[in-house]
């Protein structure tokens, strides 16, 4: 009986590295299909993915990685102020993102470039924020993809509230696959410590909101390992709130797809929230400002390079005979084109006019802003006048 579980048992399963068998996995690190034990029921959720579809996932991941590379290079060249890579997390993001329906709505943190790609964003738009010319950068409603939220965990509540709105709109459990709607909050392992994330679990559970909490455990919150945030695996966080949890191999694009597919189905059909832990690894630095050599070993990083999610799918495609050199070259060319696009786009981005800072403080006219805008215009005009005068 749960209520007499001794402390020891609770702590036994530590939050450190799980074995492959302790996660839902459909592709082994060497690229073979698998569906052992608890993973078995998930196999049917990827059964419809044919070679074309698998190649599509590969292409997605390659493009996202190129985006990461280019953005990092642009930052090094001084074109961006900062950039957070999703390097290593492509399978978790692309797999889960491709399971979404058009009407589903996503609340990302700040590292979900892979999900953004699956939502049809022109990834260049993500860079407006990191160029320092926009706080957001895209039309959220065109993609059902909310802006990046930098205050850790706060968007988990937005997602839950949004899902409560979906419920009120009558778009849960209608049985119509084009109408039933789920909402997803993406966040990291460190974020699970925030009060807001846990309150989101409270609200989601008690309202049975159609929301999926997709936690990418990339094992680091900047310099802090996951053990600083939890002493049990994060997929169990939902337990005490009445929210089912599942741990998936986040470097396995198929398993990430399947687990998300199940969670979304549960949400859309009225089954309520799910907490997904996608176990993965932040292969790069936290952001371009970070220096991981201060807190983790090269050996650790190296060991994860061997579990690279893109390589894994490539090996699988090869072993399936689905690897086609012509197609691969096409993908590479596409990636090159993306790179070119990003460089051109970013370099052309100009600073907005200074006066733009007053433009959208309020949606309705606000006296203080009106007065300050007027003062600022006069002040700026004064410079022009005095320059003319000279």
């Amino acid at each position, binding site marked *: 009986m749960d209520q007499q579980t001794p402390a020891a048992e609770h702590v036994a399963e530590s939050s450190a590295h799980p074995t492959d068998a302790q996660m839902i996995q459909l592709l082994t690190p060497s690229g073979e299909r698998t569906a052992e034990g608890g993973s078995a029921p998930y196999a049917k959720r990827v059964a419809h993915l044919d070679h074309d579809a698998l190649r599509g996932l590969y292409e997605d991941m390659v493009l996202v990685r190129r985006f990461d590379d280019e953005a990092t290079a642009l930052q090094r060249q001084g074109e961006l102020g900062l950039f957070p890579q999703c390097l290593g997390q492509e399978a978790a993001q692309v797999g889960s993102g491709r399971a979404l329906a058009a009407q589903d709505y996503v*609340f990302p943190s700040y590292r979900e470039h892979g999900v953004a790609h699956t939502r049809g964003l022109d990834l260049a738009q993500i860079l407006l924020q990191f160029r320092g010319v*926009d*706080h*957001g950068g895209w*039309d*959220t*409603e065109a993609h059902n993809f*909310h*802006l990046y*939220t930098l*205050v850790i965990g*706060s968007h*988990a*509540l*937005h*997602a*839950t*509230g*949004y*899902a*409560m*709105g*979906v419920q*009120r*709109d009558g778009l849960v459990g209608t049985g119509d696959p084009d109408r039933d709607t789920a909402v997803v909050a993406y966040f990291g392992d460190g974020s699970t410590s925030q*009060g*807001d994330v846990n*309150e*989101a679990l*409270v*609200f989601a559970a*008690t309202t049975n909101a159609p929301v999926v909490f997709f936690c990418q455990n990339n094992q680091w919150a900047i310099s802090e390992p996951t053990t600083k945030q939890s002493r049990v695996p994060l997929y169990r966080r939902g337990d005490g709130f009445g929210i089912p949890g599942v741990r998936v191999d986040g470097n396995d694009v198929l398993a990430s797809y399947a687990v998300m597919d199940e969670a979304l189905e549960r949400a859309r059909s009225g089954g309520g929230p799910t907490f997904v832990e996608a176990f993965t690894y932040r292969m790069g630095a936290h952001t371009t400002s970070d220096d991981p050599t201060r807190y983790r070993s090269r050996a650790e990083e190296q060991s994860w390079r061997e579990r690279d999610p893109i390589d894994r799918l490539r090996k699988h495609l090869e072993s399936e005979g689905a690897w086609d050199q012509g197609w691969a070259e096409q993908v590479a060319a596409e990636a090159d084109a993306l790179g070119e696009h990003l460089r051109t786009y970013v370099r052309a981005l100009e600073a907005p006019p200074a006066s733009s800072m007053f*433009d*959208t*403080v*309020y*949606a*309705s*006219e*606000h*006296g*203080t*802003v009106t007065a300050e805008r007027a003062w600022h215009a006069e002040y700026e005009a004064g410079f022009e006048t005095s320059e003319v005068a000279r």
Partner: protein
Amino acid sequence: MSGETQRMTMGKAINTGLRHALEGDPKVLLMGEDIGALGGVFRVTDGLQKDFGDDRVVDSPLAESGILGTAIGLALRGYRPVCEIQFDGFIFPAYDQITTQLAKIHNRSKGRLQVPVVIRVPSGGGIGAVEHHSESPEALFAHTPGLRVVAPSTPQDAYTMIREAVASPDPVLYFEPKARYWDKGDVDTSVFGTDASRASLDAAQVVRPGSDVTLVTYGAAVHVSLKAAEAAAAEGTSVEVVDLRAVSPLDTATVAASVRRTGRCVVVHEAATFLGPGAEVAARVSEECFYSLEAPVLRVGAFHAPYPVSKIEHDYLPSVDRILEAVDRLLSH
């Protein structure tokens, strides 16, 4: 008096405003702790859950950040949530959501998104309550761009302003002077939507004309200011009282026009004086009315001390005596 005018308490005026807002727009919903069957600890939402259902008048879990955070999500989905915070002192767990999210999402999205959330906060003191139940934290919100901060002082304004707050595309903090919930007044509900009504979230109002001194005030302190004005009148001093109604934006034009006439100004509020709203009023009046002022702008607010135990709260809050003392100081300058 129009056919839509009724005499009612301020609490009832807010209740009526919420009722009309719920009737007028199916996207309006109320959220908060104990606002359903109980009708809120002050009964401001009395009867609303019964009439509109528990889907539109929602008893939330006991978590203010959760209430505000989910309200933001609902607003992004097209709803217009009106959140009740049970008491002024319990708004702070939601402070992050209000300050970093609610205030900024419109701006962050370059105007593409709106988050029309209203936060109702029974606030202020004088009711003999325990700690955290008598505070006036409006300055802690008015400093943050993106938020509107208002406080009605009469049943009519309470009605008008809650309607306008719900209709506003911007987030509004609506501070309800809880000590005045039981004050009665005429409420004309037909005013909503007129220009006068729309102005209620932006424009101050001269609520008592006078010529010697201007008292600038809002919310619960309007009542005590009017009493002080009356007492002053008895002693031959003509005091004008300006009800700001909004702390953000601050209608400095109306205030300055008054002070230019009177030459003297006292700001009165229940918030602590130090860095309270009166600091901004005093700074602006001192700047804009530099040549009209016969004496420095004075402020009568709470002291730089936590809200004290209730047995001495009236020594902490602005009182008729303290206001008159300030008026006397100005006149003897």
